[in-house]
């Protein structure tokens, strides 16, 4: 099949899945459709990536859809984490239905929205036109807000409202930025032109500097709100702690990366005209501030899902920082960090999801003795905790070290040392709670008896495998993809 047809198939699968799950009722059928559709998306995505790496960039509809290495990286993330989250959803929801926390007739709403959510994220990865990119990224919020509110009590509702209002406002500011960018292009391309990446990239150095700079800042602030960069992050810990665990994995691991993709696209288009230096400085400042805020809140955190949410802000800050530093090593590290963050963070949300299913609490102090009560999950908690904190030999160590080393080598010593210090403090703040939960004495009350089924362990161990393998070995094709993506964000 040709590349353009495959792009259409890629988007058609989740769409068909959404329609099918909305109209069908039996839980077994819903689970089956979800597993099959996400597996199919993964296969199609891998074929598309293969085409991309062998030199024929797939595109369709006059570049409305287009795959390049940067989009390809996000596509890989969406497809992989989408698949593991779909499998996890099945085990998670089976457990919830058996224990009466979720009614069986609510499953179809969950699965239909899940498919739409994945569809919008896939679309942002393969968009070749800035209008399509904006629509897709803004669409991720709309599709996922009802999922944040899935449990339907007071706190999830508060989280969902905060989430949709703040990120929609952010998306609008980004749209303002996109319009200003379009206006910048008018000088070079005439009144009406194709608002796609290749067209704009061709005239990127001819855009008026002030207009391009304004456009970038608006998009950075707007999509920064969606990517969880401080100080626009305030919705994130709420939404990421209140949503059902498989949705958290997608929100945290994938959706944030999609928003980052939006920022980097505009960065690459505006940097040649507006001056690479000041654009990078803006990214570095937002990155460092996000790190600082995240670490400050990590230290005193008593809720393990909020802990992970702040760790996401830390990782997004690092990614912005890596691209902002601009040294080849740091930018490559930032691209690797996007993938690693997605794998490790989804792994940890799967793990804490298991804790939640069993203990029915998010308080770190009320969970204990995992090594004896849930040995399989305890391994994930200990090893995964080390992984997201950035210990060697896991993959996040490699990417975080690359970012810091890149900064140090390009003589940005201040940024490098602040980052290293914050990473060390963050490391302790993340690892300590997971060790305490694993090795302390188990709580005595008999409430914690709900056994967790086997399905929820499979996706977690798959993600763990990825984090371990990427820590010691980046396969050749993946390296090419990351290098291609890094080149696109180093104008």
């Amino acid at each position, binding site marked *: 099949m040709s590349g353009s047809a495959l792009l259409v198939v890629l988007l058609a699968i989740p769409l068909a899945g959404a329609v099918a799950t909305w109209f069908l009722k039996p839980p077994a059928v819903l689970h089956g459709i979800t597993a099959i559709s996400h597996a199919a998306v993964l296969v199609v995505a891998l074929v598309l990536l293969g085409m991309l790496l062998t030199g024929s960039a797939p595109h369709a509809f006059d570049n409305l859809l287009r795959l390049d290495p940067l989009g390809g990286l996000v596509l890989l993330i969406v497809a992989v984490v989408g698949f593991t989250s779909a499998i996890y959803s099945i085990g998670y929801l089976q457990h919830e239905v058996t224990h009466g926390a979720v009614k069986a007739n609510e499953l179809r709403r969950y699965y239909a929205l899940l498919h739409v959510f994945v569809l919008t994220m896939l679309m942002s990865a393969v968009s070749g036109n800035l209008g399509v990119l904006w*629509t897709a990224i*803004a*669409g991720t919020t*709309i599709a996922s807000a009802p999922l944040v509110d899935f449990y339907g009590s007071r706190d999830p*509702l508060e989280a969902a*409202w905060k989430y949709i209002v703040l990120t929609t*406002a952010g998306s609008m500011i980004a749209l303002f930025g996109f319009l200003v960018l*379009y206006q910048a292009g*008018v000088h070079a391309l005439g009144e009406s032109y194709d608002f796609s990446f290749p067209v704009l990239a061709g005239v990127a150095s001819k855009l008026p500097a002030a207009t391009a700079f304004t456009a970038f800042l608006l998009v950075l602030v707007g999509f920064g709100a969606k990517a969880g960069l401080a100080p626009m992050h305030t919705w994130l810990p709420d939404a990421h702690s209140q949503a059902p665990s498989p949705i958290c994995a997608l929100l945290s691991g994938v959706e944030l990366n999609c928003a980052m993709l939006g920022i980097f696209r505009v960065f690459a288009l505006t940097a040649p005209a507006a001056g690479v230096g000041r654009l990078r400085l803006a990214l570095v400042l937002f990155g460092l501030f996000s790190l600082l805020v995240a670490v400050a809140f990590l230290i005193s955190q008593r809720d393990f899902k909020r802990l992970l949410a702040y760790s996401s802000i830390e990782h997004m800050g690092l990614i912005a920082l890596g691209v902002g530093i601009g040294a080849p090593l740091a930018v490559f590290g930032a691209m690797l960090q996007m993938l690693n963050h997605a794998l490790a963070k989804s792994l940890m949300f799967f793990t804490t999801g298991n804790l939640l299913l069993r203990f029915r609490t998010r308080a770190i102090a009320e969970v204990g003795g995992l090594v004896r009560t849930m040995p399989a999950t305890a391994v994930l908690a200990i090893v995964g905790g080390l992984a997201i904190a950035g210990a060697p030999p896991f993959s996040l160590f490699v990417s975080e070290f690359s970012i810091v080393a890149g900064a140090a080598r390009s003589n940005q010593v201040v940024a490098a040392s602040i980052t290293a210090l914050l990473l060390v403090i963050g490391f302790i703040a993340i690892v300590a709670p997971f060790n305490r939960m694993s090795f302390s004495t188990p709580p005595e009350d008999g409430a914690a008896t709900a056994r967790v089924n086997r399905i929820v362990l499979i996706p977690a161990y798959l993600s763990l495998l990825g984090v371990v393998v990427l820590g010691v070995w980046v396969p050749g094709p993946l390296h090419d993809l990351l290098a291609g993506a890094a080149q696109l964000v180093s104008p």
Partner: protein
Amino acid sequence: MLAAIAAATFVQSSRLHLLLLAISSFVIKGIVIPVVLRRQVRATVFDKRETHYYVGFPTALLIGMGLSIAGFVSANQLAITKDLLGQPVSGVAISVILIGFFIAVARSDAVMQLTGLLVAENGLLLLGLVMSAGLGLLVDFALLLDVLVGAVVMGFLIARMNTTIMSTDTGELTRLRG
């Protein structure tokens, strides 16, 4: 008005897709969204006297005036477009965006916050029209669809808020911190 300006731009540049855009934005923003939101919100205890605000009424008026001036000034600064219709309209558009965001932050009632965001969105679409005469037919329709679905989802959440906390005042939703 948005539709009228789209139509005026169509007359000026005589491009067919602007006429389609004028009609569809009138239908979606003028008819569909108000009707759907009315149905969703009618059942709630939304207080029509709008008592849930953070900024007093006279102050709000003054701030609104200030924002309008800021809008026109920044439109001149950006020098968005040189044609006769575009210059004043882009000033109006930026003012509308700023005032929309102001409404969203100054009121604590969810219905008013949604209204503020919709106002800002109108300003953006207006700005998009005068700046670029649309981003291409498909893209413009995708944008409109986004607005429509977004408004409906927010309306759904407001209705849920009403049944869960018996109010649409977001000032009562302050449990999640830290």
